[in-house]
C-alpha cells in the first residue's frame, strides 16, 4: 500500500508495529463519512459565458431539475452575477448547491472590464471565509462555505478558436478558481470540426499559459479514468430539459429535422463525461483544490498585503502572539504618531499666529510712538511761540512802564517846571 500523507509526515519519528488482531480503527473512514453525510455537503458552481450559450439549460440538465430564472436579454449594461442556492437530496446525501450565473457577459461593446465583476465575486467569497477564519470566536464547522469550487467556462461554438474575451477572462480566473472549459451548444459543430476545434482551443490555452483544472491522477482508484478524461477536454456539451421518445425510452434530447441529438449519448456529445467528472468522481477534489490551493493563495496574498510575515529579518519564525503584538505595537505607534503630528501642527500654528499678532502690536505701538513724537514737536513749537509772546509782552510792559514812569516824571517835572516857571516868573517879575 502506498505511503499515506500522514505516514510521510510522521517520517522517522514513528515506528511501525504489527497488530496481533483486529483492533477496529479501519472504521475510521466510515466514521468520517458518516459525520460528513450527517453534516451535509455543499458545492458552488460558477457559470461564465455569453448570453444565450445555454448555461441555465445545462445546469438544469446536469442536476436533473428545473432551476430558477428566465432567459436574459442582451441589453444588460454591465456584467452581473446572480446566485441561487438549492437543497438537493439523492439517496441519503444532502447537497447544498449554489449556482452562480454571469449575466450580461459579452454583451457590451467595450468588454475590457467584463472579467472584473467575476473576479470580484470570487474574491468576495474568499474574503468572507478569511474573515470568519480570523475571528476570535468563530464557528468554522457550521459556516456555509460560499467559495466557488468550479467555474464552467462556456465557449462559443464558432468552430474556429477562442475569442480574445475568453482568453483574457480565463487568464484572470485561472489562479482563483478551478476552470473547466466546455464547448456550449456543440450540436452546431460537426464531428470533424469538433476535433479540430478542441485541439485549437487546447493549444491556445497552453500557449497563453492558462491553467485549467486537471482531473487528479494521483489516486490509483481514479487515476485511469481521470487521465483519459483529461484528454477529452474541453467537453463539448449539449443541454436539454425536453424529452423525446427514442425506441421505448424517454430521453433528454434536441429534435431537429435531420435527427435527434441525445444528451446522454456519448457519441453525440460529452455531457455524460462532464457529469461523471464534475459530480460523480471529482466533486470532492474540486472542493479540496479550492480550499488548499486557490483559497490559500488568496489568503497568503491578503496577509502579506497587511504586512504579516512568517519569519522576522533573522529568519526566526514568529509565533502568532509575537505577530499580533508586533502588529498591535506598530498600530499603536502609528496612532500615537498621528496624534503627536496633529499636536505639533497646532503648536506651530499657535506660534505663527502669536508672532503675527506680536508684529501687529509692534507696528501699532510704533505708529503711535511716531504720532506721539509729532505731537511732542508741535507742543514744543507751541511752547516756543508762547514763550516768545510772553517775552514780547514783557518787553512791552517794561516799555510801557518805563514810558509811564517817564511821563509821570515829566508831568512832575512839568509841574515842577511849571512851578519852576512860575517861580521863575515870579522871580523874573522882580527883575
Amino acid at each position, binding site marked *: 500500500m502506498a505511503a499515506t500523507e500522514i505516514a510521510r509526515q510522521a517520517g522517522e519519528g514513528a515506528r511501525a508495529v504489527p497488530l496481533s488482531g483486529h483492533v477496529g480503527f479501519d472504521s475510521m473512514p466510515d466514521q468520517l463519512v458518516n459525520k460528513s453525510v450527517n453534516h451535509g455537503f455543499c458545492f458552488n458552481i460558477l457559470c461564465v459565458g455569453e448570453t444565450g450559450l445555454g448555461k441555465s439549460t445545462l445546469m438544469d440538465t446536469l442536476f436533473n431539475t428545473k432551476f430558477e430564472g428566465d432567459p436574459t436579454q442582451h441589453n444588460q449594461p454591465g456584467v452581473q452575477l446572480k446566485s441561487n442556492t438549492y437543497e438537493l437530496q439523492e439517496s441519503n446525501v444532502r447537497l447544498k448547491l449554489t449556482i452562480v450565473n454571469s449575466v450580461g457577459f459579452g454583451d457590451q461593446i467595450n468588454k475590457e472590464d467584463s472579467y472584473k465583476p467575476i473576479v470580484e465575486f470570487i474574491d468576495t467569497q474568499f474574503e468572507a471565509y478569511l474573515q470568519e477564519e480570523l475571528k476570535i470566536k468563530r464557528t468554522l464547522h457550521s459556516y456555509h462555505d460560499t467559495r466557488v469550487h468550479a467555474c464552467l467556462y462556456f465557449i462559443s461554438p464558432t468552430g474556429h478558436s477562442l475569442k480574445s474575451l475568453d482568453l483574457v477572462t480565463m487568464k484572470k480566473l485561472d489562479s482563483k478558481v478551478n476552470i473547466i472549459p466546455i464547448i456550449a451548444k456543440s450540436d452546431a459543430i460537426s464531428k470533424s470540426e469538433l476535433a479540430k476545434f478542441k485541439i485549437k482551443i487546447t493549444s491556445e490555452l497552453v500557449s497563453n499559459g492558462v491553467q485549467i483544472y486537471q482531473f487528479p491522477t494521483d489516486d490509483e482508484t481514479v487515476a485511469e479514468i481521470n487521465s483519459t478524461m483529461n484528454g477529452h477536454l474541453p467537453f463539448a456539451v449539449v443541454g436539454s430539459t425536453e424529452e423525446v421518445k427514442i425506441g421505448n425510452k424517454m430521453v433528454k434530447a434536441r429534435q431537429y429535422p435531420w435527427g435527434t441529438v441525445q444528451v446522454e449519448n456519448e457519441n453525440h456529445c460529452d455531457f455524460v463525461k462532464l*457529469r461523471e467528472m464534475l459530480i460523480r468522481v471529482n466533486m470532492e477534489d474540486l472542493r479540496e483544490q479550492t480550499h488548499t490551493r486557490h483559497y490559500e493563495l488568496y489568503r497568503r496574498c491578503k496577509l502579506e498585503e497587511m504586512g504579516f510575515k512568517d519569519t522576522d529579518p533573522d529568519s526566526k519564525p514568529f509565533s502568532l502572539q509575537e505577530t499580533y503584538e508586533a502588529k498591535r505595537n506598530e498600530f499603536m505607534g502609528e496612532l500615537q504618531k498621528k496624534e503627536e503630528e496633529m499636536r505639533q501642527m497646532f503648536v506651530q500654528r499657535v506660534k505663527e499666529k502669536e508672532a503675527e499678532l506680536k508684529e501687529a502690536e509692534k507696528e501699532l505701538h510704533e505708529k503711535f510712538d511716531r504720532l506721539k513724537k509729532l505731537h511732542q514737536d508741535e507742543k514744543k513749537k507751541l511752547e516756543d511761540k508762547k514763550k516768545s509772546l510772553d517775552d514780547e509782552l514783557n518787553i512791552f510792559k517794561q516799555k510801557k512802564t518805563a514810558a509811564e514812569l517817564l511821563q509821570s516824571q515829566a508831568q512832575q517835572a512839568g509841574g515842577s517846571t511849571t512851578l519852576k516857571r512860575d517861580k521863575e516868573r515870579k522871580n523874573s517879575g522882580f527883575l
Partner: protein
Amino acid sequence: MEQQKNLEGYVGFANLPNQVYRKSVKRGFEFTLMVVGESGLGKSTLINSLFLTDLYSAEYPGPSHRIKKTVQVEQSKVLVKEGGVQLLLTIVDTPGFGDAVDNSNCWQPVIDHIDSKFEDYLNAESRVNRRQMPDNRVHCCLYFIAPSGHGLKPLDIEFMKRLHEKVNIIPLIAKADTMTPEECQQFKKQIMREIQEHKIKTYEFPETDDEEENKIVKKIKDRLPLAVVGSNTIIEVNGKRVRGRQYPWGVAEVENGEHCDFTILRNMLIRTHMQDLKDVTNNVHYENYRSRKLAAVTYNGADNNKNKGQLTKSPLAQMEEERRDHVAKMKKMEMEMEQVFEMKVKEKLQKLKDSEAELQRRHEQMKKNLEAQHKELEEKRRQFEEEKNNWEVQQRLVEQQKLDASRTLEKNKKKKIF
C-alpha cells in the same frame, strides 16, 4: 434563500461519500491518546490490549518502568495499518504522575503539554504560508482511577477539574478485576455522584438521529465510568485463545463483557467515536484555547470586561475599529483645538483693536488740546498786538502833544522876551 428541489433523475452526487472515503484513506489518519494515572494501575497493559500490539515492551518500556522523580510527559508514535487504513497513533504518557509524596501541581506538566500542542497548531494555522498541518493535539485523555472502592481521591478530582475544559476526559476504573460486580456498581455510582457534584465535564457521547445508535449510547452511559482490565498474555479458555489474567480461581477475560467493560471502551474509543473525539477536540477545546489566546493578544492590557461582547471580530477587525474610533477622536480633538485657537485669536485681535482705539482716542484728545492751546495763544497775541498798537498810537499822540506843547512854549517864550 435556499429552496428544496427534487431531482428528476440520476445526478451522481450520492457518490460524494465514496469520494470522501477514498480521499481520507489516501491521506491516512492520526490520533493522539493520553493516559494519566498513578504507577501500577495497568496503563501500559491496557494500551497494549486496546491496540493489540506490544506498544510497550522490553525495548520500549511503559511509564511505570521508568521511575521518575518529577512528572514527565512523554510521547511515543507508532504507525499501524489495518484493512487498508493507516493510523499514526501517538500515545502520551505521564510517568511520575501522583507518585510523589507531595503531588501539588503534578497536573501542570500535563496542562503545559496540552497547551503547547494547541499553541503549535495555532501557530501553524496562522502562518502566512500554510502547508499540511499535522494534528498533534491531544484528542483523548484516559484517566485511571485506582480501584479503592470508596470514591475519587482529591488528586483525581483536582486533575479532572483542571483538565476537563482542555481535553476529552474518559475516566476509567483500573484493575477492575479486584472488585466484585456489586462493589464495582457501588463504586461507579459513587464516582458519578462525585463527578456531578464537582461539575466535572467528562467526554459526552453525541446524540444521533439514529434510534438504534441512541439505544446503544444510553446503555454505555449507564455503565460509566468504564471499569477495565488489561492483559498482555494470551490464555486458552474453553478452546479459545483469549487475552486474560490467570488466577487460581479462574481467568478474568479482558474481552468478556461480563467480566469488565474493556470491549465497550475499545468499541467506543476506536471503532465508533474516534472521529468524534477528534472533532470535539478541534471544534470545542481548541477553539476555546484559541479564542482565549487571541483575546489576550488583542486586548493586551485593555479592560477585558467591556470587550467581552466583541469577540466576534478578528483581532485585525478589532484594530480597524480602534483605528476608526481613534480617527473620530482625533477629529473631535482637532475641532476642539481649532475652536480654542480661533477664540484665543479673536480675543487677541479684539484686544489689539481696543488698544488701537484707545491710543487713537488719546491721540485725538491730545491733538484737540494742542489746537485749543494754539487758539488761545493766537487770541492772546492778537490782544497783545491790539493793546500794543493802541498804546503806540496813544504814545505817538502824547508825543505829538508834547511836541506841540513844547513848540507853543517855545513860541511863547520867544514872544515873551520881546
